[in-house]
Structure formats: structure tokens, C-alpha cells
């Protein structure tokens, strides 16, 4: 993991994808919200996942009205908020994790309003200073992203946009032109949450995206098991696991670590 240690932002993500590619697998980026089930446990969980060999992180910033999230993440982030989790505390968490030796790329993931309330320039600057590498805002389509784009460019942070099965060619081109770091591919029309099976159209969908963009594609929504991880590992440049890990993390740090470790093993077989 030493090869990404001195890189940050988009460069760190490039190195992460290059290493995964060299190993003929996809990069594994878990999502975990700060403050769930409590602040200390969320840090311990992320540290344990880092030690289990995941490739990067989405660090969740809780929001009171998460319209793209299903019940698992809604409930988890609600608990985090009730315990007093703030944007500032999420940035502090990243700083602490870096101090504890977590070297993988970390992207801050949160809805627009808390970041706007913090101040978009200030947030990007402080995220960079804390050691974060990028930003994902699920309710910020490329059309509205100007408020973050300049600051991200200035600080070298990735600004990730999403594409969904409903995205037409025009929107694929738009996201491709504006995204840095990678494109977050939403696997299905729906909200976040563990699913039993991955959609059957996934191969065609990814092929359609590949035809219009050369940005790395990272798949999220519904990926819940080592079998899923193995299935997508040959298909995309990376994948995100959220709800399944959040659910495990609600049980114990060890449960989350074990699930992540089984996925790490699955994509390295």
C-alpha cells in the first residue's frame, strides 16, 4: 500500500486503479458513515476495513433528508446525527484515520446542503487538509456542480458524478466531461440498499458506458456479498459496498471487517 502514500486526490485514485488493474481485479471502496453506531466505532470500523485490505473509502457525512438512501443508511445516519455528528467531525475523523496510518484514498460523500452550509470552498480546502482525496454529492448533478468544481480543481480533489441506467448518451458525455477521479455508476434505478441479486442488464449497461467514456467506472447500489464482488470485479474498475457493510458495522467492528475481508478475498482469487 506504500505506493499511494505520498499521492493525494485524483493522483491517488489513479494509482489505486492502476494497482487493481495490474492485479486484474476491480478496486473495492466501502462506504461507511461517520458516527455510526457511534463516533469511536465508526473510526474503528474504517481502520479495520483498511487493515483488511480494501482499496479506498467513501466517508459518509450524515444528512437529515437523504433522498437517495434506503432504510439501512437512513437509520444509520439518523443515529449518527442524533449523537451529534457534524461535517466538522467527519473531517476530523479523516484526519484521525490518516494519523492512524490509513493510507487508502478517501472520498467524502454527503448531500449538498450540509456542505453548502459549511461553505463549499472552505469544505474542499478543509477536506484536502484533513487528507481526503475527493468528493461525491448524490444530489449534485454536473449541471449544478460549479460551486464545487473550481475548488476541487485547485485542491486536486476528485469530483465524482453519477450515472444511472436512465442516463442517456448526452448525460453520459456530460458526466464524462465533468467528472474527475471516476464515475459512480448506479447499478439500478432505486435507492441504496442490499439486494439479493445484481441486475441482469449490468454487462450491457457497462458496455454502453464504456463506449462513451474512458473514465474509470465504479459500480454501487445493491452490491452485498462476496459473490456480487466477484461478479462485478471483472466488469468495472471498482465497486462500492454500503448498506451491507453498514448493517454489519451496526453489529460489531468484527462483523464489518469479516464481510469486507471475504470480499477482498473474493476479488483476489
Amino acid at each position, binding site marked *: 500500500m506504500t505506493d499511494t502514500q505520498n499521492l493525494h486526490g485524483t493522483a491517488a485514485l489513479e494509482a489505486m486503479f492502476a494497482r487493481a488493474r495490474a492485479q486484474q481485479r476491480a478496486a473495492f471502496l466501502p462506504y461507511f458513515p461517520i458516527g455510526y453506531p457511534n463516533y469511536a466505532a465508526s473510526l474503528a470500523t474504517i481502520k479495520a476495513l483498511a487493515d483488511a485490505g480494501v482499496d479506498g473509502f467513501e466517508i459518509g457525512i450524515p*444528512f*437529515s*433528508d*437523504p*433522498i*437517495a438512501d*434506503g432504510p439501512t443508511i*437512513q437509520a444509520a445516519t*439518523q443515529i449518527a*446525527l442524533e449523537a451529534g455528528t*457534524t*461535517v*466538522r467531525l467527519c473531517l476530523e475523523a479523516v484526519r484521525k484515520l490518516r494519523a492512524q496510518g490509513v493510507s487508502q484514498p478517501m472520498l467524502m460523500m454527503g*448531500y*449538498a*446542503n*450540509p*456542505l*453548502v*452550509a*459549511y461553505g463549499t470552498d472552505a469544505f474542499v480546502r478543509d477536506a484536502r487538509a484533513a487528507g481526503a482525496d475527493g468528493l461525491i454529492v*448524490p*444530489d*449534485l*448533478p454536473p*449541471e*449544478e456542480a460549479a460551486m464545487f468544481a473550481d475548488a476541487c480543481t485547485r485542491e486536486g480533489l476528485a469530483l465524482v*458524478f*453519477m*450515472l*444511472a*441506467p*436512465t*442516463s*442517456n448518451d448526452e*448525460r453520459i458525455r456530460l*458526466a464524462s466531461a465533468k467528472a474527475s477521479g471516476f464515475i459512480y455508476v*448506479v447499478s439500478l*434505478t*432505486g*435507492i441504496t440498499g442490499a439486494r439479493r441479486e445484481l441486475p441482469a442488464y449490468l454487462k450491457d449497461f457497462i458496455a454502453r458506458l464504456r463506449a462513451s467514456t474512458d473514465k474509470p467506472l465504479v459500480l454501487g447500489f445493491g452490491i452485498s456479498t462476496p459473490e456480487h464482488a466477484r461478479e462485478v470485479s471483472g466488469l468495472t474498475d471498482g465497486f462500492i459496498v454500503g448498506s451491507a457493510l453498514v448493517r454489519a458495522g451496526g453489529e460489531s467492528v468484527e462483523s464489518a471487517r469479516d464481510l469486507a475481508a471475504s470480499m477482498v478475498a473474493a476479488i483476489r482469487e
Partner: protein
Amino acid sequence: MAELYIRTDLTDLPDERGYFGEFGGRFVPETIMPALDELENAYAEAIADPQFHAELSHLQRTYTGRPTPISYARRLSEALGGAQVYLKREDLAHTGAHKINNALGQGLLAKRMGKRRIIAETGAGQHGVGAATAMALLGLECHVYMGSVDIRRQQPNVFRMKLLGAEVIPVESGSRTLKDAINEAMRDWVTNVEMTFYLLGSALGPHPYPMMVRDFQSIIGTEAREQIQAQTGQLPDACIACVGGGSNAIGLFHAFRDDTATELIGVEAGGRGIESQEHAARFADLDISRPGILHGTRSFVMQNDDGQIMETHSISAGLDYPSVGPEHAHLRQLERAWYTLATDEEALEAFQVLSKLEGIIPALESAHAVAEAIKRAPTMPRDSVLLVNLSGRGDKDLDTVISILGE
């Protein structure tokens, strides 16, 4: 050619990106961005088609009962001893509130787009009833999200919706009120986007909703502007309307926007008073309300220092919402419209005064506008005219009022 039902010549706003000045826009997950494009295009086609205007106009005349009259509130005006108060009687529209104007408009649009599954959110239940009614008429399936707190305080409307064939889906997340019903409706839309039309009930949400809902509600002001001149020979000195999301207010204001001698006054829910922080006065309490992003649009939002959305309070479920339509934020910034508030107590008082003096039981939402007229009229000359939008009738609120005042 007959005059078009919806006037499109009154303003250039919103711009192409859905902005009214610095407010508005489209802050939603990617999954529904193409659906918003599709909706925007379908609406642009519909509004350019005289047939669409004719169909909507026909329904509004023969089904809703438009035009709704304006009534001179003689005894109220005499009691106040100042301005003459006129009421635009949206309470007389079918279903008892202005919400039907928008529900029929969007319903016809959904039909045109070939969408058969309609989802809606509701707070007080008036939009839910309007949506359920319009969908019964148009033969489309209707699912209404409603916070469980609101379900409790608006039982008669819940029963009405069910009777009209709609499914009412209780929302248990967050504060379990209108804000959370919108969250849940959006989650449904993200999930079922290709077959579903989201019938948003107020002039908020991502572009094109604030524009479209305003247009469908603008018939209120278009009618009232003619009626008030016919009855009084003049334009009103002020138009007054309550503002939750703000659809009845923008519907009244729109036709008057170039009549700069007519003041436009929006009345927010002052709840238990600004000091209590238990209210929904987005423009009055700038300690906890500032521009932000909620439900797909940039407008004033009640939030804590960390950008988390605050729970609001109003005696009237229809005003109990932490943000406000973006065009209101813009009109306020331009100082074209002014925003004030009425507390729960003032609204309750107005509710009773109007009932006793005029034989009209107003919705608690509309009672906020009446409360402002009661404050303002005595300070104005007798030859001045106040036009109040009576956006709905109060039958739905009787349980709430009984629980406070006793039987």
C-alpha cells in the same frame, strides 16, 4: 383563437436552468435527471398546444367549478374600519382548495406522457385529495405519501383519499410530516421513474416543478385581477396569501407582478412565535433560515448551523414545511413581494372571526392570510382594497380547532 388558459407572457423566469435569480435549479440524484428533462420537454409541448389549454380549461369550468368568485367581506371590512377586504374563493373549488388546479393540470400532462402510475406527497391532505380526485376523474392510479403525524391530524382527508381510490402510504421517517413525505415520494420516483409521474403539490422541488405549478395555479390571479376590477373599478392595493411551499400565493401574485402599485404580501406560519423557534417562517427568522438546498431546489431553508434540516411547527399542516418555493425567495430579494407571518394564535382568531362575520370557515392555512388582513386593513384608508386568497375551506381543520378551543 380563444385566449389560452395559462398565460405564458408574464415573465421570462425561470431561466433555462430553472433559476429565478439565484434560487431554484435542479439538485437531484442522476437517476431522475432524465425524467426531469422529459417532463420539462413534455410540459413545453403541452403549453404550446392550444388543445391542452382547451382540455384543462374545459375541466376547470365543468368539473372544478371555475371561475371561483371573489366575495366582498362586508361585515369584516366594517368591523376593521379601514380597507375593503375581498376574498378570492378557492375554497369553493371542487375538493375545497386550490390544489385541484395543479392536480388536474399535471394529471392531464401525465396522461399525455402516457404515464399511468401517479405518486404524490401531501401535508394537510389537500393536495392528496386533489391528486386522488383528479386521478379518479382521469382514470390513473394514485399513491399518496403522507407523514404519520399528518395522517393523525388530518383523518377526514385520509378517508377521502381512500374513498377516491388512492393508496395512502404512511411515512415513518424523520419528523413524519410533509418534508418526509416528499423524501419518500422522491425515493419512490427514483425507484420507479420510468413508469411513474410525480405529481408535486407545491411550487417547489427541482425545475420544472416550481414553474409548472405556478403556471397551473396562475388562473387564481388571472381570474381575480379581472374580477376585482369589475367589482371595484380598481386594482387591489395589496394581495395577501399564505405561504407554505407557496403555490396559492404564487398563483395569486403571478398575474399582478407587473402591477407595481399592488403590494404582494405572503404570510408564513409564525407557529408559537419566532422566539420559540417553533414555526415555519423561513423569511422571518434568519438565525435559523438561510439559502440552502432541499428537495431539489435552492431556496431559503430552516436548518441548524451544520446544514441539517430543522423540524418546523405550525397549527396548519399545509404550512408546516422548512423550505419555500424558490420564486418567492426571488420575489422577496427583488422586493417585489413582502413576507410576514401570523402565529398559530392569530390564525385561530382569524379562523373564528371570518366564520362569525362572513359565514365562511377558512382552512387554517388561509386563516393566516386573513389574520394579516385583520392587522393591515385598519391602518389603510376606506377606499383601499385588500384581496385575500382564501385558498381552502376549513372543514378539514375542525378536529384540530376543537381540540384547542373545546367543543
